[in-house]
């Protein structure tokens, strides 16, 4: 104790003696009073994001019973648990891909509009509704007595009501509905960021709309689309409320977050819940990394004039 106190005192003395040079030297590295403003936020993220995450990681290796890998072994040997990964991906991947792909042509149209703001506002509204409200609305709207089934039957498209809720379809529809506006907004902002004169130049040289898209817009857009894919995927990956309310939580929409929730709040097994959360994070980051890696492959191909 005394030894450390001594050292601290000496360090303090030294720093007062060399005060000016210290400050100047730090300022040369752009560290001064202003830089220190970042410290509270950094400490906050370290304490409430990084620490809990590491804590969860350690906790996941301390199972209730068995050796340190028991939780992970249990997860990967029980199909009721490991199938949740595929159930999640079966929902999240198609929903994200559909949202990203559909947002491109829509954004290309909308960008030329004068009343862009109105349409954007209409399309943004679903973001504010949140997944729970969309789930409640879809239960009404898509149910056997809902307006959609009634309309389809009125026009004789179908003879019996379609089963659209409490299954995979219901969750998928809600993911697209709640995810599309966000994806669209990001795509729109990337597309409006592309210099319009590039396309005009190509048009002057006689390039068709399709050629302009493939050789100019798409290569410039790929970076943004990859980021967009990742951000949208993060959103669709946590399908917890809609999977419970609109899906079949014991059946084909038993997603990984349901398994984690049950471990944490129904079996009160914090260690197992942490293990599932870690697996969840790992799967999600794997997809993100693959998407970002794929972007580079794709980009080179398109820039070289290959197929887009």
């Amino acid at each position: 104790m005394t030894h450390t106190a001594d050292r601290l005192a000496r360090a303090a003395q030294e720093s007062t003696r060399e005060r000016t040079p210290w400050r100047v030297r730090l300022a040369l590295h752009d560290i001064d009073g202003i830089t220190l403003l970042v410290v509270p936020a950094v400490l906050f993220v370290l304490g409430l994001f990084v620490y809990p995450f590491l804590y969860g990681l350690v906790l996941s290796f301390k199972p209730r019973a068995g050796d340190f890998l028991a939780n992970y072994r249990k997860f990967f040997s029980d199909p009721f648990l490991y199938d949740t990964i595929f159930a999640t991906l079966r929902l999240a991947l198609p929903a994200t891909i559909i949202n990203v792909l559909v947002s491109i042509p829509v954004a290309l149209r909308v960008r030329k509009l004068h009343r862009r703001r109105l349409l954007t506002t209409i399309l943004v509204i679903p973001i504010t509704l949140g997944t729970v409200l969309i789930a409640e609305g879809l239960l009404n709207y898509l149910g056997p007595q809902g307006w959609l089934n009634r309309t389809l039957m009125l026009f004789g498209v179908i003879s019996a009501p379609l089963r659209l809720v409490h299954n995979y379809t219901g969750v998928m529809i809600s993911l697209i509905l709640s995810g599309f506006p966000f994806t669209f907004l990001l795509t729109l902002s990337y597309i409006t960021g592309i210099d319009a004169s590039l396309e005009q130049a190509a048009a002057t040289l006689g390039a068709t709309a399709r050629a302009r898209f493939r050789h100019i817009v798409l290569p410039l857009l790929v970076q943004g689309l990859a980021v967009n894919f990742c951000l949208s995927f993060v959103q669709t990956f946590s399908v917890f409320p809609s999977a419970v309310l609109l899906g079949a939580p014991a059946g084909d929409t038993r997603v990984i977050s349901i398994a984690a929730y049950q471990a944490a709040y129904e079996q009160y097994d914090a260690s197992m819940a942490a293990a599932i959360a870690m697996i969840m994070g790992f799967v999600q980051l794997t997809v993100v990394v693959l998407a970002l890696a794929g972007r580079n492959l794709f980009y080179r191909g398109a820039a070289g004039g290959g197929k887009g």
Partner: protein
Amino acid sequence: MGQDKTVSERLWALAIWAAVIFFIVNFMAMIATVVINSFGTRWLGTWLPAGYTVRWYRSAWDEFQLGDVLITTFQVVGAVVLLSGLFGVPAAYALARRNFPGKQFVMLLFLLPLMIPPITFGIPLATVLYQLGAGGTLWGVIIANLVPTVPFVILVMIPFIEQIDPRIESAARVFGAGTGQLFVYVLVPLLAPGILAALLLVLVRTIAMFELTFFTAGPDSQTLVVALYYAVYAAGVRAGQSIDAMAVIYMITTLIWLLIALRFVDPTQMVARAKQEAAR
């Protein structure tokens, strides 16, 4: 351009508009069912309810202790907005103006909470909060909700700050302003639109944030979205109309704030803002 459109291009444009209209019509119809049902007396197997009433709003108010839930929601949202501004804006200023060693690392640190779904870090975070005794309390909910919003404010604010001419700050410094005065008299007024936009988006996000509140809230610290979840989850126990009445209240609450937010910020400019300004 415009005149050289081929038939296939026209068809393609038509198909896109049809898809957009289909999306909007279905979406509006979905909202309409919720709104109509919340005013309906009995709605079984017909196009419209048998009659209309407002009594579900009163019953929703009583059954779900909606008054308490709304107060909790506003307390949580208010604290989250205020604190994420206090943490986020100064940090964004430091990141926008200085190139210190390790800046890349700090940026990554702020990106991670946005790249990892709340449901993933929510469970370990809730475990830690419960160990600290903050789980199940109002503060636990506020702290959990701050984890994604502080980085969000930082990332939204950096481009706003970069647009401000640093010479203005230098001038203030020359006249002897300290960092605190600089913030109060120069930066905050200049950044007001940006701060307002960022905080309104935080507000909308926090009202809608389900997972983090769900994991950390106790019976007295539920926000509106979590109360709504429990109501829908236990559907059948309560009248569907009264759940829908609650959903309408939720919708109006977020919608008001969103419309205010959209007056101040064009959401499409969040990313492309700097480029558009340069083009003009």
